């Protein structure tokens, strides 16, 4: 794969939660509900775990296909599994 189409692995990430974003998303979707204090942090945690699981699944998919780069198909296949798992 050409380097221009790939995104290298992030070495540094922000540990900070985008709390405003999370609140806004929830308010946008469910305007009649409200989130209790610090619930957004738990939403963030849930999202974090979801992303973690998705990434692991995509990684294993890529490794099974002997691909050094995570491709769109790998993410798609992983998302099918993980979204089903993370149903409420």
């Amino acid at each position, binding site marked *: 794969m050409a380097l221009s189409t790939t995104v290298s*692995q992030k070495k540094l990430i922000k540990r900070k939660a985008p709390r405003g974003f999370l609140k*806004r998303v929830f308010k946008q979707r469910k305007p009649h509900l409200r*989130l209790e204090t610090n*619930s957004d942090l738990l939403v963030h945690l849930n999202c974090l*775990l979801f992303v973690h699981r998705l990434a692991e699944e995509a990684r294993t998919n890529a490794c099974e296909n002997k691909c050094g780069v*995570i491709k769109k198909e790998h*993410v798609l296949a992983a998302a099918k599994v993980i*979204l089903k798992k993370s149903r409420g």
Partner: protein
Amino acid sequence: MADSYSRDSEPTTRTLLRRVLDTADPRTPRRPRSARTDVQRALLQTPSSRRLRSQTKTTARRCSNRARSVDRLAHVQASGHLEEQTPRTLLKNILLTAPESSILMPESVVKPVLAPQVVQASRRESGRGSLELQLPELEPPTTLAPGLLALGRRKQRLRLSVFQQGVDLGLPPSQEPHGNADASSLTSSLNLTFATPLQTQSVKRPGLARRPPTRRAVDVGTLLQDLRDTSLALAPPDTVLEDTQPFSQPLVGRSASVHHSLPCRSHSGAKDVERAASRRTWSSGLGLQNNGAGKAAQLLAGKVEEVDALAMGFPNISSNISGEDGVEPLQNGVGEEAEERMEESLREVEKAAEAQGSARAEELEGHIEVTEAEGSWGAVEAKEPEGSSGDEDTSGRTASPELASSTPEFLRARRLQFLEPAPPPSTAVLPSEPPEPLLARLPPKPRIPGSRPRQDPYKTGLNHYAKLFSFYAKMPMEKKAVEMVEKCLDKYFQHLCDDLEVFAAHAGRKTVRPEDLELLMRRQGLVSDQVSLHVLVERHLPLEYRQQLIPCAFSGNTVFPAQ
């Protein structure tokens, strides 16, 4: 021998050798001498076994002869004792030993023989030439292939003088007698400085392609100089500079110095006196000021390209930099810092100009003119600030009363100077200035619209989690995959919000509480009996969030967050 070789046009060695044998004397008169030398050589060279035998001279001769003959016999059989040392015998032996029908080999042998001799001949001819001819000759062989040496030499001669003459005459380059080239070597070396760009442009050879960039860079400078020279009608010093220009290394600095020396050169006498007077007062503070100028230059180094060039080429760096500094902040038009720097640099400009004037006054007049002009240039540049922003200058004056006494005279004098030769410098300064504002003002412009078109905040939030994905994946991923991840996240949030709504509705609430989220995570399989929500929080969230989520006892018998 060599001449006979070179005269021969036929390629085979056999014919060559035969002709040599035919033309040469049957008996060379110096044969005995050569024998003696051979003996001496043998004395020097022979191994120890021979040395033992060669105790006396006579015996040495015989022995060495014998030894020689033995050696010969080893190589070539049937050679007489008398004929051993002569080159004739050598050639004959070669003829004997060489194969009769030599079609391919001899040609390959002959070529290297011929080429060096042509080279030698050309060297001999070029040796007659003066040093000026040889200096340029030293450079090109790097570009030439070693096999083409002989041809290359001739072409170099072409490049030096003949080609230029041909260009002048409007004739295609032709090989002229070498004597002519040698005769015109002096003039050609002088003319080289002017004509080299032409030659490089016309001679389109890949080997010579290294040269052009530098010379074109020179061309711009010379062009500007020529323009200014014509505008100012000041021939003598500039011509001197131009002569030395193509050979001098710091071309940019030179040209810059010349282009600084635009406005006024004729005014030197009265101001020199003034500066000499003022320098005594300022000499104490000069060192510090120069240092400050250097620091300011370091600060502005990113913006100023020309400063670097000047610093490379020029001995008196600080003054130039200070002059530049006076200009740059203004052009940038930055706020307060720029004003502060402005004041400082203005003072520095003035002081430096004064100091230069006084210092150079003691030296040669030619140097005076150049440095003078620089000082005046700085002053001219410093005047523009005054026109644009007078208050800053006034503040600078009030801040330093000493300056207030000296600067007005100085600047008034400058103004007078500026007014007197007003028409030519205005035309001359203008072409010099555009590059600087372009360089200085272009970078900020992209910065102003540099604030990216605000993305959808939802997108940025999703991108945040996509970055987390690429961190957890520990692998490089495609951009399409990133887009896919964002899509998944979008779907995930949709599900999440729906689930939370259902849970809250089931509990008869309109508020989503942490219990709902815990339930959700339990249903998702993230929280189990073994792994509690607090464990997950501790694992994945930073401390400040953990403190907000997990109840903890604090001093004063309190628990935060309260349960």
